[in-house]
C-alpha cells in the first residue's frame, strides 16, 4: 500500500512581480485504494494544489512537504514525479502538434516502465480502453488534444490514467464542462481504475454532480488555500444543499 502525504504545504505564485500566497498550510493524507474529493469555491487554491504536486514551474513551494511513501516529491523533477507514480488529469490539457495520441501514449508508457511495452498487448489495451471511453479508434492517429472538443480532451486524460496506471491520480475538475452523458462515461473510466483497489484518487471538483457517480471515501472542503473541514460523503451532500457559504464565512471570521 502506498501513501501520499501533504504536510503544511505553502505555495505562492508571482503576480505582477509580487509573490502571492495561494496555499496556506495544506494537510492531507491519502492511501492507495482511497478516493478523496476536494471541493471548494473558485479561487480557493484547488488547482494550485494539483499543479504544485505535479511540479508545474509556475508555482513556488514556500513551505511544507509532499511525500510519496516517504520519498520527497518536491525534490523530484516533473517527469520523475510521474515515474514515481503521480498522475495529473488536467483541466485544460495542452495541444501537442504533430504528435499522435498513439505515439504519445506509447512514449509515456515506455518512459514509465523503462522499456517499450509489448506491441500486441499494448495495442489491445489501448483499443479496449478507448472503446470503454466511447472514443473512436481514429482518435489514436490524431494529434494530441489538437482540435479535440472539451469532452474529448477529458476522455483522453482518463484514457491516459487507465493506461499509465499511476499510484495516485489527481483529477483537476475533470467533470467541468461535461454534459451528463460524457460525465457518466468519464466517471465509469475513473471507477474502472478504482476497482483495482490500488490507485488513490484525489478528485478536485467545484460541483457535487460527479460525486454521484464516483463515490468518495473522504470529502475535504477547501477554502482560502487550506482544508477547512474534512468528513465523509455526507459532507458533499451538505454542500449540495447549502453551498460553500458556511465555510467561507467561517474562514473570513477566523
Amino acid at each position: 500500500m502506498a501513501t501520499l502525504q501533504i504536510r503544511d504545504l505553502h505555495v505562492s505564485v508571482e503576480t505582477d512581480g509580487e509573490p502571492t500566497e495561494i496555499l496556506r498550510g495544506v494537510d492531507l493524507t491519502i492511501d492507495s485504494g482511497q478516493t478523496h474529493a476536494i471541493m471548494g469555491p473558485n479561487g480557493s487554491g484547488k488547482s494550485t494544489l494539483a499543479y504544485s504536486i505535479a511540479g508545474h514551474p509556475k508555482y513556488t513551494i514556500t513551505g511544507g512537504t509532499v511525500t510519496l511513501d516517504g520519498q520527497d516529491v518536491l525534490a523530484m523533477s516533473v517527469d520523475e514525479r510521474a515515474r514515481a507514480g503521480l498522475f495529473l488529469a488536467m483541466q485544460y490539457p495542452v495541444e501537442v502538434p504533430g504528435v499522435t495520441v498513439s505515439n504519445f501514449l506509447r512514449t509515456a508508457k515506455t518512459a514509465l516502465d523503462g522499456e517499450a511495452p509489448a506491441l500486441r498487448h499494448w495495442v489491445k489495451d489501448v483499443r479496449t480502453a478507448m472503446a470503454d471511453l466511447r472514443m473512436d479508434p481514429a482518435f489514436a492517429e490524431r494529434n494530441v488534444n489538437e482540435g479535440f472538443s472539451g469532452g474529448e480532451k477529458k476522455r483522453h486524460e482518463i484514457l491516459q490514467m487507465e493506461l499509465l496506471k499511476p499510484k495516485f491520480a489527481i483529477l483537476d475538475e475533470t467533470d467541468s464542462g461535461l454534459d451528463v452523458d460524457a460525465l457518466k462515461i468519464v466517471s465509469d473510466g475513473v471507477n474502472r481504475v478504482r476497482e483495482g483497489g490500488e490507485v488513490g484518487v484525489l478528485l478536485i471538483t467545484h460541483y457535487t454532480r460527479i460525486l454521484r457517480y464516483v463515490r468518495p471515501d473522504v470529502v475535504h472542503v477547501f477554502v482560502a488555500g487550506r482544508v477547512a473541514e474534512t468528513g465523509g460523503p455526507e459532507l458533499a451532500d451538505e454542500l449540495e444543499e447549502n453551498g460553500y457559504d458556511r465555510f467561507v464565512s467561517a474562514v473570513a471570521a477566523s
Partner: protein
Amino acid sequence: MARRARTTARRSPSAPLSPAPRVHDTTSTRRTAITPPDTRPHDTEAAGSTTTPADARQEHAVDHAAQAPTDVTLDSSRSAGPSYDAGAAVVAAAGEAVLEATRGERARSFDVADFPVPTGREEVWRFTPLDRLGGLLEDAPADPDARDVVVQAPDGVHVGTLAAGEGVRGTALVPEDRAAVLADAASPSATHVRIPREVELDGPVHVSVVGRPGSRGAGHLVVEAERHSRAVVVVEHTGGGVHADGVEVVVGDGAELTVVSLQLWDDEAVHVSQQEASVGRDASYRHIAITLGGSVVRLSSTSRYAGPGGSAEMLGVYFADSGQHLEHRSFVDHAEARCRSDVRYKGALQGETARTVWIGDVLIRAAAQGTETYELNRNLLLTEGARADSVPNLEIETGDIEGAGHASATGRFDDEQLFYLRSRGIPEEVARRLVVRGFFADVVQRIGVPAVTDRVMAAIEAELDLAVGPVAGAAAAADAVAAEPVLAGRA
C-alpha cells in the same frame, strides 16, 4: 530585438470589390487585405459579398521578424500559449514597404547588365548578408573544377547537356537576380535530365553536386518531364565553396514531377540558387527544399503555369544553427485558370546567430480564375538570440478564385507542451525532441519520397542531438518509441 509588422497591399483597379473592404492604409488605391487561411475554401471569393474586416480583406503583404524570446504570430485565432496551427492574421496597415509595384513586374533577363551589383537595400537582397557571399555577385569567372556533378538515372531517362538557348533551356528559368544571371552566363553547358513522354520511373533520378572547398562554382540543371511522365529527381548538394546555380524545370502536360533540392553543404559553403518551373496543363509539380548545411544558403523556388489545371506543391524544411543564414524565397505566379498551389515551409533555429528568412510570394493574375492557393510558414526558435523573418505576400488581381490563404507564425518552445509531456513521465530531453519532431512532422510526411524522408529525419535527429543533447540510459527507449512514427512516415 527587432520586431516589425508591416502590411502592404495591392489590388488591380480593374477588379472592383463590392462592397469595398475596410481600408487600412491611407493611399486611396491601396487596400489592405488579410485572408484567414482556415476559411480558404470560401474566403477570397467572398471579396464581393463580405463586410467584416477579417474576411473582406483580400490581399496583403506582411513582414515579420522575431527574435527569441518574443513570439510572433500572424494568426489571430490562437488560444492561450504559442500555437503553430491557428488561424489567420490581423496585422495593421501601412504602405511603407519598398516593394515592386507588383511581384509580376520584377526584372527577368539573361543580360548581366540588367542586374547591377546590389547595395543590400534592394527588396530582393535586403535580408541577405551580402558581405558573406564570398564574391558570388562579382562578375568573375567560375573555377572549371569547382563542382563535380554526377547523374544516376534509371533506364529510360535521357541524360545529356544543353547549351544556352538549346532545347528547353531558357524557357522556364529566366534569371531574376544577379546571382542567377551570372550563374547562367558561367554555365555554357547545362546538365540535362529528360524523362521521355509517358515514362513512369520506379526510382528517383539522383543528381549529386559536390562542391570543392575554396572554389567558386556555377551550374545549371535542366529537368524536363515530358507529357504524362512521372518521376522524382533528387538534387543533392554537398561539399564546400561558393556556388551560384539554377535548376530549370519543365513539367509537360499531365506529367507528375517531384524535384527535391537537398542543401547538405559543409559549414563554410555559400549557395545561391534560382529554381524555377513551368508547370504544364493538368500537370503536378512538387518542389521540396531541404536546407540543413552551409554558411549562407539562399534558394528561390518559383512555379509558373503553362496551361490551366496545373498543381504546384512547394515544401521546405530547414534547420539553422549558429552562424547559418538560410533563406528561402518561394513564388507562385498564377496566370492560368483553375490552377492550385500549396506552399509549406517549416524551420527550426538554434544558437545565438542562427538566422532564417522566408519570403513567400503568391500572385494571382487577372486571368487566373478559379485559382486555389495556400501558403504557410512556421518557425520554431529553440534558443535565445536566433532570428527568423517570415514574409508572406499575397497579391490578388481577380475576385473569381476558389480560395487564397496564408499563415505565418514564429514562436519559442512551448513550456506548457513540455510540462504536459513530462507530467506523463517523459523525460525532458525526450519531450523536447518529441515537440520538434512533431513540429516538422506534417511537412516531412508530405515529402513522400522515403529515401529523402529518412535522410531528413536523420538530419533532424542529428540537429536535435546538438539542440537538446543525445538521449541516454533509460530515456533512450522512450525516445526510440517517440521517433518511430515520424521515421516511418506515417501520419
